[in-house]
C-alpha cells in the first residue's frame, strides 16, 4: 500500500469548481477525495456500500473504489468499531458509519476502553487513525432513538477528538482533516442539515480541528453553539438584531480539542455568554463550556453564563420535539435575561 498524504494534513486541494452542494454531498465528496488520496482509507458500516448509506453519504464509494475499500458489515456495532480498531492496528485508516446516534451505543465499550486508549497504552506504537461518523440530533421527525445527541458522553473520554460541522465547507474540510488525523475522531454529522446548501468550491479548506469559528460578530452577548444549533443561534441573532441586541455567534466546530482562545476572546469582548445545544442540558457539553467560560472570563462576565439546551428528558416523539429543542425564541429569552442582569 502506498501513502500519498501526510499523517496530519489532508492532501492540498486541486481542480476547484464552484457548485451549489448540500452538506451531505460535501461529506460524500470528502470521503471520495480522502479515499482517492490515500489507499489505506477504507469505509464500512451498515448499508454503506450497496445502498450508499441510509442518508446516502457513502453513495458511489463502493462502485468507485471497489468492495474491498467500501463494504457492508453485519449488523453489529461493537464489532464494526472493533474491526476498525484492528484494521488501524494493521495500518489502515478506517472510516466507519454508525447509522444513527443511538445505535452507536453498543460500540461504547470499544470506544472508551480501546479506541480512546490504544495509542496511550502502547506508548504510541499503535495509533488509532479511525473516524467514527455519527449522524446526530433531532428535528427530522424521527421516532425514538433516531434523534439522540451523545457528544457529551464522547467528549468526556480522553483520547478521542470530537468534531461537528455546521457549514457545507466545514463538512468537507473537517471530514478530510478527521480522516487525515493520526488520532481517532468522532465526527458528529448534523443530520437535519444534510440537505442544507451552499455555493462552494470543492475541495475547500477551512480551519484545522481544534479551532472554533466566529460566524457572526456582535457586541452584546456571545451565543456559543455547534452542529445544527449554529443555524438556530444565527436565526436568534438575526431576530435579536431586530430587537436591538447585537449578538455574536461562535461555532465551536471542534469540541475536543476545545478552542479556549476563540471562545474566551469573544466573551471577553461581549461580557455575556449563552451556550446552545440540542442534547439534554444536565451534565451536557454546555456545562463544560459554561464552566470554562465562567472560570476564564470571571472578571468580565456581566451576567451568568446561561444554557439553552434540550430538556432533561428522553428525546420526545416527532409531534413534540419542537418543545424540546432549543429555539431562537428560547435563545432570545435567555439573551433578555442576560441583558437584564
Amino acid at each position, binding site marked *: 500500500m502506498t501513502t500519498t498524504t501526510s499523517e496530519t494534513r489532508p492532501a492540498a486541494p486541486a481542480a476547484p469548481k464552484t457548485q451549489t452542494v448540500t452538506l451531505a454531498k460535501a461529506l460524500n465528496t470528502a470521503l471520495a477525495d480522502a479515499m482517492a488520496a490515500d489507499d489505506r482509507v477504507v469505509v464500512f458500516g*451498515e448499508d454503506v456500500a450497496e445502498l450508499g448509506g441510509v442518508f446516502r453519504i457513502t453513495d458511489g464509494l463502493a462502485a468507485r473504489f471497489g468492495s474491498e475499500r467500501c463494504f457492508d458489515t453485519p449488523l453489529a456495532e461493537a464489532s464494526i468499531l472493533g474491526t476498525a480498531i484492528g484494521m488501524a492496528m494493521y495500518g489502515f485508516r478506517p472510516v466507519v458509519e454508525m447509522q444513527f446516534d443511538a445505535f452507536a451505543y*453498543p460500540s461504547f465499550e470499544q470506544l472508551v476502553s480501546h479506541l480512546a486508549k490504544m495509542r496511550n497504552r502502547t506508548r504510541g506504537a499503535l495509533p488509532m487513525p479511525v473516524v467514527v461518523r455519527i449522524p446526530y440530533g433531532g428535528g427530522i*421527525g424521527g*421516532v425514538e432513538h433516531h434523534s439522540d445527541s451523545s457528544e457529551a458522553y464522547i467528549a468526556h473520554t480522553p483520547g478521542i477528538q470530537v468534531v461537528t460541522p455546521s457549514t457545507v465547507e466545514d463538512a468537507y474540510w473537517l471530514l478530510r482533516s478527521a480522516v487525515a488525523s493520526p488520532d481517532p475522531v468522532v465526527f458528529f454529522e448534523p443530520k437535519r442539515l444534510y440537505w442544507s446548501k451552499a455555493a462552494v468550491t470543492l475541495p475547500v479548506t477551512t480551519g484545522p480541528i481544534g479551532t472554533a469559528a466566529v460566524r457572526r460578530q456582535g457586541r452584546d452577548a456571545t451565543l456559543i453553539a455547534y452542529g445544527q444549533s449554529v443555524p438556530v443561534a444565527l436565526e436568534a441573532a438575526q431576530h435579536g438584531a431586530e430587537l436591538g441586541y447585537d449578538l455574536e455567534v461562535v461555532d465551536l466546530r471542534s469540541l475536543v480539542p476545545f478552542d479556549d482562545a476563540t471562545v474566551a476572546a469573544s466573551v471577553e469582548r461581549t461580557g455575556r455568554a449563552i451556550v446552545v445545544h440540542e442534547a439534554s442540558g444536565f451534565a451536557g457539553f454546555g456545562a463544560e463550556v459554561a464552566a470554562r467560560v465562567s472560570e476564564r472570563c470571571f472578571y468580565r462576565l456581566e451576567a451568568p453564563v446561561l444554557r439553552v439546551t434540550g430538556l432533561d428528558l428522553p428525546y420526545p416523539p416527532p409531534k*413534540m420535539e419542537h*418543545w424540546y429543542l432549543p429555539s431562537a425564541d428560547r435563545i432570545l429569552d435567555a439573551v433578555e435575561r442576560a441583558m437584564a442582569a
Partner: protein
Amino acid sequence: MTLLDLPAATGRATPAPDSSRPHDHEYQVTGPGPYWDTEPLRYLDERGAPAEGGLRVDPALLEPERLLAAYRALRLARAFDTEATNLVMQGHLAVYPSCRGQEACQAAAALALRPEDWLLPTYRDTAALAVRGIDPVEALTLLRGSWHCGYDAKKWRTAPQCTPLATQAPHAVGLGLGAKLAGDPVVALCLLGDGATSEGDFHEACNSAAVYQTPTVFLIQNNQYAISVPLHKQTRARALSDKAIGYGMPGVRVDGNDVIAVLQVLGEAFERARSGGGPTLIEAVTYRVRPHTNADDANRYREQAEVEAWLARDPLDRLAAFLRASGHLDDSLDEQIGRDCERYAESMRAQLALEPDVAPAEMFEHVYAVPTRQLAEQRAMVEAGEDA
C-alpha cells in the same frame, strides 16, 4: 537465555504416525455452505397443498375454526399493513416499516400467545399487535409520532416496539425468568429480524436464556434483508436456526409463509417453555416484500424478479387455497371477511387522518415517578412558552 533455542536432538526418531488411521473426531463440524441448503419445515407446499413429507401438525390446529381464525388473522394483518402503507404515503404516519409478505409470522405470533404471555415486538411487528387485539391507533402511535408507545404495555403484556436491534431479547429472558421464579405458566415471545442475530445482545440473551432455562421463545423472522444487507452478508451459518446449537437449545427452521407450520412450531415451543423445557430458537423463512420502510429504495439493492418469486409464495394465497380445497372457505365467506377488513381499514383511516392531540405535559410526566425540581422548572418554562 537459551531456553527457546532448539536443543541438539537426543535419542531416536519418533515413530511415524499411522496416517492410514482416520480422524476419530471429524472436527469441521459444519462446513460453510449456502444458506438455502436446508429446507424449512412446512405443512403446506408453495401452492397451498399439503406438502409431501411435510410437518406433522397437532390435529387441533387443523380444526376448521382454528384454520379460519388463522385466515382471518392473516387478512387482518394484510389489511392493517396495506392501510398503514397508504397512511404513511399520505403523511399521516412519520414512518412505516411494512410487514407485507410476513403476515403468517405476524398472525401466528399473536395467535400463539395466551393473554398472560408476553410479546416483545419490533418496529416491523405492528400488524402482530393488531392481531393481538390492540387498537390500531394505539398500535401505530410510535410510527405516527405522537408518543413512544400508544398501548398499555402492562395490560397487553406487550413491550413497547423495540427499535435498537436485539435489545429486547434480554428483556424476554428477564420476563421469562420472572415468570419462572414466580411459578407462573407464562411465556415471553421475542420477535427479531435476521439482521438482529448479528448483534451481541442476541447472543447474550440466547445464552442466558438457555443457562437459566427460561420460558422464552425467540422467533426470528428471516425476511432475507436487513435494510439493504442480504442474509449472506449477515451470516455464514447454514441456517439461522443452527445458532441454537451453540446455546444448547432446540432450534427450528420453519417456512415463515406457511401459517400452519409456524403455528405448529410455535405451539411446541410454547408447550416446552411452559412445562419447564426452557427456550427455543425458531427461524421463520420469509421475505420482506416491500422496501425496508416507506423511505427506502429497494431498487438499489435487489431485483424485482426476486420479489416476484416470493410473491408467488404469498402466505394468504397459500392458506386460502388450502381452505378452499378442503371446503372451509368459499367466495361468500371470503367476501365477508374482505368487507370486515375494509371496515377495519376505514376506521383506521378515519382515526389516523386526524391530527393527534399532544400536550407538552406528557413529556414531563413519566420521566420519574416524582418529577425532580429541575424538571418541574423546565415544565413550567415550556408551558409558559405555550401560553405566551
